[in-house]
């Protein structure tokens, strides 16, 4: 109770302080439109950014949009800001949009994306030698199902995610078959189902995500990614094939409409300054998806705990 009161008092004080200082700087009261997608991390990230901009006096609007389809809106200015463009899945679309001149890359969020093959810990007993990828060469059958036997069954992401898993399997001489899930939800439904039965499973997992917090497991350690390994067959373990290494890891970018900076220069510098790290994000995602807290509560708690950080970003 006292916590709630002190929190609201603090909030009121901050708002009073800022409403004099910050509102004066606001260049335009047209709504800044932030895109929302369908995974909790992105919602949290976006709403924190939105709350910060609101504290600075800007008019914020949240809009549901598809991860890739949103670029059409960002180019025209229908949408102003996308908070999570993953280097692992969205780099191509982002580069294309930036090249068009209508979208700008507003820098890293501070989050680092990992996307790789992942298995629950109990699979280690059936396939000793994991997490090293060479173990998979000998125990593909442990991952097989009736439809794929004797090949192992690897559940890949939706085909739109790319990932080059078929090529990787070929290049690294793994005896696996890729089954593509249609969506993120289908992918993790497979994991949930197998985990409940402690049944064999290996699949595409990415972080920041709630799954590694809910299920015990590890990423497979493939030879590290390099651009040459993807482009040049002679590089890497298999001299005759490309993709004989793991998937790229990389930052999660912020992307904005090119007219953003001219219209709301103050907001743009706050967006550029904004960073958050993997640990913070994982904790918040777990709070929402595993403990059932509401996103609003989690965002408000972060705002109260990190006031120094965000006041510095908006006073720049």
């Amino acid at each position, binding site marked *: 109770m006292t916590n709630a009161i002190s929190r609201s008092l603090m909030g009121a004080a901050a708002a009073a302080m800022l409403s004099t200082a910050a509102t004066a700087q606001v260049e335009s009261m047209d709504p800044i439109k932030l895109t929302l997608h*369908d995974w909790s991390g992105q919602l949290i990230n976006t709403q924190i950014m939105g709350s910060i901009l609101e504290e600075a006096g800007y008019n914020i609007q949240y809009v549901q949009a598809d991860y890739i389809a949103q670029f059409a*809106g960002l180019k025209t200015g*229908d949408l102003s800001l996308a908070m999570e463009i993953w280097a692992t899945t969205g780099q191509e679309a982002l580069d294309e949009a930036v090249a068009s001149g209508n979208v700008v890359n507003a820098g890293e969020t501070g989050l680092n994306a990992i996307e790789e093959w992942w298995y629950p810990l109990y699979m280690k007993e059936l396939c000793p030698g994991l997490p090293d990828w060479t173990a998979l060469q000998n125990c593909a059958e442990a991952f097989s199902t*009736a*439809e794929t036997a004797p090949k192992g069954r690897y559940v890949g992401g939706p085909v739109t995610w790319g990932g080059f898993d078929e090529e990787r399997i070929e290049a690294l001489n793994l005896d696996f078959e890729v089954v593509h899930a*249609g969506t993120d939800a289908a992918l*993790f439904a497979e994991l949930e*189902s197998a985990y409940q039965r402690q*049944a064999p499973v290996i699949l595409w997992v990415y972080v920041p995500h709630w799954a590694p917090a809910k299920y015990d497991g590890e990423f497979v350690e493939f030879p590290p990614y390099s651009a040459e390994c993807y482009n040049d067959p002679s590089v890497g373990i298999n001299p005759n094939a490309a993709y004989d290494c793991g998937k790229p890891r990389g930052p999660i970018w912020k992307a904005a409409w090119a007219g953003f900076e001219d219209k709301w220069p103050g907001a743009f510098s706050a967006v550029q300054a904004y960073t958050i790290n993997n640990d913070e994000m994982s904790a918040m995602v777990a709070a929402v998806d595993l403990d059932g807290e509401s996103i609003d509560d989690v965002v408000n708690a972060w705002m109260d705990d990190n006031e120094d950080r965000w006041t510095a970003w908006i006073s720049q």
Partner: protein
Amino acid sequence: MAWLLKKPTLVFLALFAATWLLAKYSSTWFESPSLAWAIDYPKTWVLPLKDYVSAAMKWLVEDAGFGLFSFTELTRAIAWLIEQPYEFVRAVLATGFFDGIGRRATQIVPPLSWIAVTAAVVALGHYAKSWGLAAIVGLAFLYLAVFGQWESAMVTLASVVIAVPFGVAGGLMLGILAYRHKSFEAVLKPVLDLMQTIPVFAYLVPILFMFGFGPVSALVATVIYAMPPMARITTMALKNVDPEIVDFGKMTGCTQRQMTWKILVPSALNGLMVGVNQVIMLSLNMVIIASMIGAGGLGFDVLASLRRLNIGGGFEAGIAIVILAVALDRLSQALAARSTEYSPPPREQGFVARHKRSVTVVVILGITMGLGLFIPALQTYPEAAELSTGAFWTNGVKYLNINYFDQFEAVKIFLLTNFLLPIKRFFLGIPWPWAIAMITLIGWKFGGWKLGAMNFAMALFIATTGMWEKAMITIYLCGASVVIASIIGIPIGIWAALSPRAGKVIGVAIDTLQTLPSFVYLIPVIMLFRIGDFTAMVAIVAYALVPAVRYAAHGVRHVSPDLIEAGVVSGCTKRQILFKIRLPLALPEILLGINQTIMLALSMLVITALVGTRDLGQEVYIALTKADTGRGLVAGLAIAFIAIMADRIISASARKAKTRYGID
């Protein structure tokens, strides 16, 4: 050769055998360069139609103009016009009115209290029919409050409240125009066919481009999806107006406008209300897809829960959609029945006595809103008193998964190896020129040269746009599902018709299955059967089963009692009555049911793309995520063409069956 033509069945059997042999041995053709083209449609022959469509869309959105304003400005103005009433209704029902913006906004007027809204629908139920109906809708809304779905349900209700008048008005206008002008009707008919068969996902992208991201686009998509039945029913209802009434109008010298609005529409009101009911139900069908592009509400709750694998949460929100649909369905049907009854003009009384219900609702509204300022429970249903069935559903699926997975797996493997995979190999093995010839021939046999020509053109379209392989997977998956759905559904329907008690239970189950969003059971089905064609088939069967049951029940039930009596008199056993009288006479209805099953199966394919299939549904879904207008529309058209071909062939054979049994 002449004797062959007299025995068409033999000819077709021979052709089928030839097709089967071709499909079986065509795999070797891949190796021979002179034959490979017939199995695998060459990429260089593909007509880049989707690129043309995308370019046209780009031009429309970026460059097209009408002099004073651009096309985009026009569509955005329309979006603004739709947005205003929507925002208002949503504020009244769900969110309340705010002063200021964002996190610092303060609510100045709360939304209508849950008690007041419930009281209003109870009053409406009583007005429309009886206390019985009032109790049903009252309980439905109470359920929404008690199970914590209130706010989302009100957001959904707000979008229905806005989408339905647009859908009804649009459908009415199109229907009236088609009634007045034969030429317009001829144009409208194929357009309506396409509107009903192209999957919604296929035109979401162009709508997003034109109307912007957000609830308005969702509303527009809903209206497009829900309007066609209204247009069809309007034309039909106007045509069915008693010609004497029309003559009477002509004699009194009505203008065309008077004729339409004072005579035709009022006389056809009963039929028109059926259309309104359809629009409401279809709008509710759309809530999930609409929530993908920003509609919020119950649909979004279903989606969000399932992304977190919160199966219970998804079920709860899904059942709330069913409950809302049932309440609105019953209300609108009762209002439709009432609209045709004669009600005596009220006797001279005071205002309060004449408007008892309205006054009561306003009083309750005033009291709950006023006292709600001090006792929040009167304004919003208290969270502490909410109930949840979520854990029940989640644990239920978990229990099945842990204890029965092996049994499911055994059934799955059996059906896969003995049923699904052979069908798949068959369809993928047919060389496409041969398949086009066969489809044309079938069209010619059942519907004459016109249907043959249409089939030829549509099949050629699918091949030349490079969709052949995906189309074959579509037909295989859809065909296999329809077979299973018919095997399960038709006997259930017959049973429902023969036993009134079973009929009641089956009726409720079927209604629920029809309104329950298919997304709700998609994730549990994946958990029990894993990603793959079989899982997609289970989901399609669950969804497409409904019309097979319904039409079979209807057909068997409505066989003329005279004929059955004739059977009884001539000493038929019960079995004979069923197999010799009821079933043959119900055959046309059963065929129509299968036709509807095919339509639903095809529309479900887009949803099963979320599981992970490799058919046209996946093509549409990929186009959606990549915002590729052309790719989505071309794949959507291919699905629509498959649906239209199947529909025409089956309708034609149903007509033949009717003539054969002398029903028509």
